[in-house]
């Protein structure tokens, strides 16, 4: 067993390498990541048999990825933040083609203002594209989920692109121990890509630029993509089970950490969820029955698993690392919607927005959220949604505003 210190970017590249990716379309400039750099090095040295093509934008990159998948090769690509947004038009398009490939997104806050650190508004912008979404919390999970993602993408009951999401800095640049699975056993797990009735050639043309008018045909195709996405929840469980048998690492669409006897649970996704795990352990040290519910799968939304996880809890603390202006935390609303039609499973939900643009969530803030949840468990009335933000942070921003010549009292520039 090889166990190495690898970054999230490195783990993603290893995942693509072990999956036998044959074609790598890439926009090579910022906000591209070391994932492509690592793959390029392997290709250059002949370590992997893969064709890399650099495209002039993420938009073209996704078009190339979809087209190559439709041509019958196993495709991998990657982007981040603004790049994902630039690719958005083609993401919907290739999902509509039902072209199976795997893409990594390294989550970072979106402009404006410009920042570099993690935030989930980029990946959440792709929620309705038709792509399956898996959200990772460790570098090991990046590698494992990426391999499982190929099984999902290529499954005949799904056949959709899969996006594997990892957080900028907190995973992408962070090294931690990662077990590299045996390549032969990965081959056994994945098998070859069988493009079904795709795989177009000169003699066997295929048109993907299909136009349908009137709405009825459009409804059919769009809803079929929805039904296919829904299948991914069950298929993930089967694949994860196979993966566990081969590699002894166990994944679920929703991870339940110390939840069995928990009264109050955190609900978080991504790398910040491991910070919640730390807080859970410390709260457990103090005898408090707290747990963590962590969806790995966000599309399809694992409603049934979440209902089971949250059934009987006295309060649920949902921390959104995203913000929909005029709406609030997206995950909070999605969980609320999933529970609304479930009689008997309606624990009070506490909504916090934290970690925007990589803003740290300190351990005392986890403790404070639990204190508010304990009150809510008694009163059944959750506090209003809250941005995790301290008086010191406001003072710091006021100093910056002075430097930027913003006159605080009147708002007029000096």
């Amino acid at each position, binding site marked *: 067993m090889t166990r190495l210190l690898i970054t999230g970017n490195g783990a993603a590249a290893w995942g693509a390498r072990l999956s036998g990716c044959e074609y790598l379309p890439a926009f090579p400039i910022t906000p591209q990541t070391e994932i492509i750099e690592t793959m390029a090095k392997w290709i250059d040295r002949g370590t992997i048999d893969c064709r890399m093509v650099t495209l002039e934008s993420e938009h073209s990159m996704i078009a190339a990825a979809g087209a190559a998948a439709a041509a019958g090769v196993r495709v991998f690509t990657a982007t981040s933040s603004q790049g994902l947004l630039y690719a958005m038009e083609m993401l919907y398009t290739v999902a509509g083609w039902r072209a199976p490939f795997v893409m990594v997104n390294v989550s970072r806050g979106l402009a404006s*203002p410009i920042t570099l650190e993690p935030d989930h508004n980029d990946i959440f912008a792709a929620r309705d594209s038709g792509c399956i979404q898996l959200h990772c919390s460790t570098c090991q999970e990046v590698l494992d989920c990426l391999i499982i993602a190929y099984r999902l993408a290529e499954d005949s009951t799904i056949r959709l692109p899969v996006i594997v999401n990892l957080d900028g*800095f907190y995973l992408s640049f*962070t090294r931690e121990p990662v077990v590299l699975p045996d390549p032969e056993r990965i081959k056994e797990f994945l098998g070859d890509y069988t493009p079904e009735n795709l795989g177009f050639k000169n003699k066997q043309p295929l048109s993907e630029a299909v136009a349908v008018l009137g709405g009825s045909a459009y409804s059919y195709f769009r809803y079929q993509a929805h039904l296919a996405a829904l299948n991914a929840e069950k298929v993930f469980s089967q694949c994860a089970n196979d993966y566990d048998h081969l590699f002894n690492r166990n994944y679920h669409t929703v991870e339940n950490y110390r939840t069995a006897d928990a009264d109050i649970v955190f609900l978080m996704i991504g790398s910040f969820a491991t910070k919640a795990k730390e807080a859970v352990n410390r709260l457990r*040290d103090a005898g408090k029955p707290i747990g963590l519910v962590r969806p790995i799968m966000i599309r399809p939304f694992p409603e049934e698993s979440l209902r089971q996880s949250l059934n009987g809890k006295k309060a649920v603390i949902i921390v959104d690392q995203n913000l929909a202006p005029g709406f609030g935390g997206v995950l909070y609303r999605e969980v609320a919607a999933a529970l609304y039609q479930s009689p008997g499973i309606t624990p009070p939900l506490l909504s916090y927005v934290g970690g925007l643009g990589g803003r740290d969530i*300190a351990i005392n*803030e986890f*403790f404070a959220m639990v204190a508010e949840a304990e009150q809510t468990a008694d009163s059944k009335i959750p506090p209003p949604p809250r941005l995790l933000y301290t008086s*010191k942070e406001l003072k710091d921003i006021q100093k910056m505003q002075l*430097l930027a010549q913003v006159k605080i009292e009147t*708002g007029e520039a000096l």
Partner: protein
Amino acid sequence: MYRIRFHGRGGQGMKTASRILGSALFIAGFEVQDAPRYGAERRGAPIFAYVRAAKEAINERGIITNPDLIIVADETLIPMPSVHLTAGATADTIMLIRTAENADIWQKRLNFRGRILAFAPSIEITNPEHQHYIGIACASGAAALIKQLSWNHLEEAINAELAEHPQRVIDQNIRYARIAFTSQSEGPKIAEGTPVGINDTSPPLWINLEFAPAQISAPAIHAAKTSVEVKTGLWRTHRPLIDRQICHHCWWICSTYCPDGAIQVAADGSPQIDYDHCKGCMVCLSQCPHHAISATPENEFNNAQEKGTQS
């Protein structure tokens, strides 16, 4: 868990330092997490990197707010408030500063609660060409203070982390590593930090963020004045100095090439460098036709002044 934070500047090898220390700890049987953190991706900008190491799985992530060991690669970072050098330090924290001055001076200047160790740069590393070896010195000094690491762990980590470099580069690193490791091997033992429990913290001072009109709350910078007020001179690792004996007063060359407009011209036609804003890019040095401009490490410029070169 050991929580170790490195502070330095881009180009001084802080990321490599954190990785070498991380690898050494991993080889020694620890679970490890290491990562760099930078804002402006450019040479000379402050960066930091951190290493966590524990015998069990690590769930903490991100910036270390309660360091057991702080390593300062470059003492010129100390006046920069944005660097937050001492953030989270307690009486148990050890700070290792690469400085020619003695520890007591820094202990007083910084009013530091923990213990400060001074760590004299080896003569060779004061050469600007060897700036990128500062990292290996820092990693090795830190390794020596973690008594659970041996020289062999460190050497194996250096060989692994630098495997893609030519042998002479690896050898040079090992040479510097040996000097730094030996210099700190008699130093105090770093104490492993404990988990942060619910009785170890006070509640966060949360506020409800109130609405502010866009005139205030839009992220705009008004007026060009701000570039005067931001003292970018603190970014320098090296200071360009003009030798007045050699300068031919062809001021239009250096002042035109200066990308920051930080070279003004005095009434007598002599170029004057505005050190409040000069970022130390050394474009002037490379453009000066008479080689009248030299680069001096920032922490030594006072000596250079005494030798009669320009302030």
